[in-house]
């Protein structure tokens, strides 16, 4: 009886479509969110994350509609976020059908947001998303999609967020994101050793071996990736079989 490591596909959504961001310069259309969600649900994904990457006020209604359409396809948990600024934003996302909400920039500006969401919906519904870059000595949290440095030490910020009620950490390495050079396992191991909640590793996944490494050396509880799943470079079932054969606890039955 072991808690399985989770494989989590992520849908980055803009104006109701799944897109692939290329270093914030261009966006490529990757398909319909509900169709992709249905596919991942079928293929044995352990959870799904949907992020509003436009995070504009005008796009909010469209995003809530996307969450509704995605949730209808799923019999697995759904996490949603992107541009969540207030309790009401979080509530809207959960009411639309998400089980958990992620907060990022607004939580750094006003950490009380985490406490408010956790008190209202429980820690299991609040995921702190933190975008991180390496510094010569440690890791620093960035905001606004990795554009602005905060001066905050990533591990210290994660620990504070957990003390305020965050139930999971979605940890993205900006250095590795989109590079296909593998997860930053030192980073995930560091954060996993710091906080008493599950850590979801994100950024850099390319091969099956990258996932094995992040679960063993990186001590991550879950591995998240986007484009390698959308483009069908890797099937989720094949990845899960690969990991199970190498002794990683994985859910194979659906």
């Amino acid at each position, binding site marked *: 009886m072991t808690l399985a490591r989770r494989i989590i596909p992520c849908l980055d959504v803009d104006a109701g479509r799944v897109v692939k961001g290329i270093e914030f310069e261009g966006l490529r259309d990757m398909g319909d969110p509900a169709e992709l969600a249905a596919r991942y649900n079928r293929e044995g994904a352990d959870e799904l994350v949907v992020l509003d990457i436009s995070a504009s006020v005008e796009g909010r209604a469209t995003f809530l509609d996307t969450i509704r359409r995605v949730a209808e396809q799923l019999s*697995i948990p759904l996490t949603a976020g992107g541009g969540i600024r207030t309790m009401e934003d979080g509530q809207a996302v959960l009411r639309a059908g998400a*089980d958990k909400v992620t907060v990022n920039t607004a939580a750094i500006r006003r950490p009380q947001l985490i406490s408010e969401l956790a008190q209202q919906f429980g820690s*299991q519904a609040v995921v702190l998303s933190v975008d991180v870059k390496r510094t010569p000595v440690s890791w620093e949290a960035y905001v606004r999609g990795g554009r602005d440095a905060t001066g905050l030490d990533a591990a210290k910020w994660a620990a504070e967020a957990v003390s305020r009620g965050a139930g999971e950490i979605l940890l993205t390495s900006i250095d590795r994101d989109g590079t296909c050079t593998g997860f930053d396992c030192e980073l995930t191991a560091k954060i996993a050793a710091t906080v008493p*909640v*599950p850590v979801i590793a994100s950024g850099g996944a390319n091969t099956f071996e990258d996932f094995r490494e992040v679960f063993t050396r990186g001590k991550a509880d879950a591995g998240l990736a986007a484009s390698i799943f959308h483009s069908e470079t890797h099937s989720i079932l094949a990845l899960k079989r690969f990991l199970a054969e190498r002794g990683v606890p994985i*859910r194979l039955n659906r």
Partner: protein
Amino acid sequence: MKIAIIDYGAGNLPSVERALASLGAETERVVRPEQLDSAKAIVLPGVGHFAAFVAGLRERNLTSSLSKAFDAGVPILGICLGLQAMYASSEEAPGDRGLGFFHEAVQALPTNVKSPHIGWNQVERSREGRLLRDIPQDAYFYFAHSFAAPGSSEEVVAVCNHGVPFAAVIESRNLMGVQFHPEKSGETGAKVLRNFLESVQ
């Protein structure tokens, strides 16, 4: 037959409704006590805080109606916090009283493991129950919680282990409960709900 789903003002209600509907069940959201008078089966869904849950039931005058339904033998399925609410109290909300169908207290998960316990885990059965019928021993279920009912009580059909063994599935007379979320546990979870529906028909 209509399944009465208790709507206490928060929680995972739409996904539970959707999961039951996909199995062909008709559901009705219950917000007033008289709606329970003719109920043939009740689902008590729930996520969030124990205090908010029992307050939500109290505000809607549903607490005593649920006890009456229990006494009358109406099958009741508690999901996650809905299972926990069947107990007398919870460490999450000291001073608040649960439904008290079971006299034990819900406890916090130990601090030597990651909490919340979030993700897919397996369970170990101590006896044959109704809810897990025809489900493989090694099946996974989706959990998301920081508190749990003790694993040693008589009503426990299966335990999950996260730091300590805790109640994952309970069955006692007309009461059934699961600490995991069947509505989020893929095909395995759908089978649990189907077993519930079959057991109440």
